[in-house]
């Protein structure tokens, strides 16, 4: 029996309005999608904008011109000792700090010494060490201003301080320049002399140790699992634990390091050695997974060909598979290392959050890392540290983004499609 239905009237107003509604929904949906993309993009842009806006000023610092006349206030030291290892101590003992403070009082009016950083005399000291002739005459030094003066000069301030800063500015005694101590020094309590070099060196040492351990171990483990491992319960266990380790929260690795490396092995606390070992355990699974994918993408025909001309299984892997997979392995490794470089939480637990005023000397000396320095500075009460924190963030982001960019470049340049 034929069922008779009236043909749909596509041109009718009912269907037309329905189609219009569906198309409107379509447009709305597409707009939502675009909105989501733009929203995340906007958030990223806002984040970078805030950091760069705050941080760009952190690379600059206000300096006050202070004439110091060593003829009027002689610094009595034996110039022959300036080349010695303890020259810093010698100059400090001779009372340079007082001379500089006095000179500042004289040049900038009463309390003038409060307008310059309390560590400003150290700049004079290194100038004297470079050129002992300065001790025989009068020199105008550009000394770092006190933190409040620096902020007042950058943002404008009211009250007594504001008036003083304005007066200094009118006299042409203030100047702004790149803040070299920021790149040269380790952490300090005074923002005028606090720098990131100590943390940066700590980061480099830590990442170096992590790389030294995680890269060979990760690649060898990946080679074993991908090329040789028999399918049995043991290899299953290895595989499961690698996949799980890659997803374990980083702070758990900190607990492990605290319990094993510090309390059990008694390795040096807060050192790049322990930090590097912790990060190595954390990055190794990432490297294994990336390496396995790279090894998997090497076509079997290459293995068969090598075996066919008489290479042993070990020769097949080390002479053919590994070199071909290396670009992919390196890409994964760099990305894993960049992640480790930005990691803070596990290092908090192994003691790397202590205040370290010196640049670390070796892998066993107490040190801090760049993300940790950011965390420590973000807790500082002194307002001068706000822009230092953002400046340190800019440095960290530049390092991380260039690592990632290099990884992407490597992938695009060397990856082969078989």
């Amino acid at each position, binding site marked *: 029996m034929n069922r008779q239905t009236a043909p749909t009237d596509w041109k009718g107003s009912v269907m037309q309005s329905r189609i219009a509604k569906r198309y409107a929904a379509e447009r709305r949906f597409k707009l939502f999608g675009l909105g989501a993309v733009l929203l995340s993009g906007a958030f990223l842009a806002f984040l970078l904008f805030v950091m760069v806006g705050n941080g760009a000023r952190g690379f600059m610092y206000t300096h006050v011109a202070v004439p110091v006349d060593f003829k009027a206030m002689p610094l009595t030291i034996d110039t022959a000792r300036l080349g010695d290892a303890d020259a810093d101590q010698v100059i400090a003992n001779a009372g340079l700090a007082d001379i500089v403070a006095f000179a500042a009082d004289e040049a900038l009016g009463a309390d003038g010494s409060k307008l310059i950083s309390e560590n400003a005399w150290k700049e004079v000291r290194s100038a004297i060490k470079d050129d002992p002739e300065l001790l025989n005459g009068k020199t105008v030094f550009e000394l770092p201003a006190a933190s409040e003066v620096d902020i007042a000069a950058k943002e404008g301030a009211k009250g007594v301080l504001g008036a003083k800063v304005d007066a200094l500015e009118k006299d042409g005694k203030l100047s702004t320049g790149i803040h070299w101590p920021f790149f040269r020094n380790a952490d300090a309590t005074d923002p005028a002399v606090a720098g990131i070099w100590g943390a940066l060196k700590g980061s480099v040492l830590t990442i170096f140790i992590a790389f030294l351990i995680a890269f060979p171990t990760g690649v060898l*483990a990946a080679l074993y699992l991908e090329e040789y491992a028999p399918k049995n319960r043991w290899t299953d266990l290895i595989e499961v634990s690698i996949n799980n*380790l890659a997803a374990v929260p980083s702070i758990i690795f900190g607990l492990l390091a605290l319990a094993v490396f510090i309390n059990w092995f008694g390795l040096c606390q807060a050192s790049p050695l322990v930090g590097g070992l912790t990060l190595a355990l954390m990055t190794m699974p990432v490297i294994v997974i990336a390496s396995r994918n790279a090894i998997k993408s090497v076509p079997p025909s290459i293995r068969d060909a090598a075996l066919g001309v008489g290479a042993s299984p070990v020769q097949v892997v080390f002479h053919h598979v590994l070199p071909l997979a290396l670009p992919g392995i390196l890409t994964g490794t760099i990305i894993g290392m960049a992640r480790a470089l930005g990691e803070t939480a596990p290092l908090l637990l192994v003691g790397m959050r202590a205040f370290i005023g010196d640049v670390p000397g070796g892998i066993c000396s107490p040190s801090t890392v760049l993300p940790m320095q950011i965390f420590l500075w*973000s807790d500082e009460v002194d307002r001068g540290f706000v822009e230092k924190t953002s400046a340190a963030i800019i440095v960290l982001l530049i390092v991380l983004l260039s690592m990632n960019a290099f990884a992407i470049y490597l992938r695009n340049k060397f990856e082969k499609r078989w």
Partner: protein
Amino acid sequence: MTFNAAALLLLIAGLALIGWLAGRARSNLLAGRAGKKLHSRPQYHGWYVALWLFAPAALFLAVWSAVSPGLITNQVIATEAAQSLPEFGFERGAILSDARAVAQGKQAAVRLPAAAPLVKPYADASHKYAWIGIAAMLALALAGGLYAFTRIKPDFRARTRVEKIVMLFLLLASLVAILTTFGIVLSLLFESIRFFRLVSPAELLFGTEWAPTSGAPQPDTFGGIPLFWGTILIGAIIAMIVAIPIGMMTAVYLTQYAAPVVRKWVKPILEILAGVPTVVYGYFAALTVAPALREFAVMLGIPNASTESALAAGIVMGVMIIPFVSSMADDSINAVPQAMRDGSLALGATPNETIRQVLIPAALPGVMGGILLAVSRAIGETMIVVMAAGLSANMTANPFASVTTVTAQIVKLLTGDQEFDSAKTLAAFALGLVLFIVTLLLNIVALRIVKKYREAYE
């Protein structure tokens, strides 16, 4: 003369290089003399000799540098000068380490007067044991090298032997992962059991009062519920409310609507969000987002609005996870067979209807798995909550109030100046165990869902 392990390692590495050259030369020489072809290429003979030279000596070096400090201390304690040492405790250790530092030249003079008579015995003992160690190590290296050297013959299967050792290294490297897993499980379990001797597991899991630093009159309480609630509120609720819709819509737009060129550029840019270190997000949340939210809350007249709010931490964490959710959703949508999409479009459905009624339901298991992984990542996140969510354990549903999380409390408990055995530090390990188990379960379930779903379409 002290025992410098790094220098000695370099020394035997140098010897191994000589062994390599000698082994290679000898195999060539013997083959030429006998007029036979070598079974293995000459460098494998070299490697064989070098490995025999290096491995036993290096192993001995590792054992000796672990054992010898104890032997040295024993000998020092046996001397007459050490009879006046205090019996036990911190002072004894301090005197001994002071004397050791001077004897090893790390320190110019003793800091504790009691250590002065011990310097010479220390120097003598370390001198003696250093020589014993070096002599034994060299003897081992030479014996190993000579043994391997004498075995070289044209038909000696050096390659097979060397390859066996290479395989051993590969196996050892892959065992590191298991060791790490065991290390995590054992260290967490061990410390947690010690904690549970002091505080019952029921209190940690079901107690509603978290006050590990209360004053002396009240005993410390370790009720974990406020922490678990804070963790769920930030990581599983607020962060997901931000990340799931934005991440999903981003994935849908980029896979279904965007031109390939747009996709090629936008995707890596969004990936940057995942590459920004968490400490930067934390700083951003604490410095910019939290104060803005607080002002907003005050404007709305919400009570207990704090500068450290669950909302600030949750929103920023959600943004951090967007790329993760989006790439998981991307994978799942791409895994849906093209035929399903084409079929739906052919029936006259708009792309939007196809996506909502065909693609997403079909991709749902994969998406769910991805969301579970994202939750596990969010609840394990530390720096954002440490910097932006605060440390006060509140049981509140008010997102503008300050809450705390498991990870933030672990950091707080372990970064004070505490002795290692107090209930407070042990509590951190118990919290770590809870966190580990929960994230592990989430990961296992998620991976299983994803895997099953992939198989369904293959």
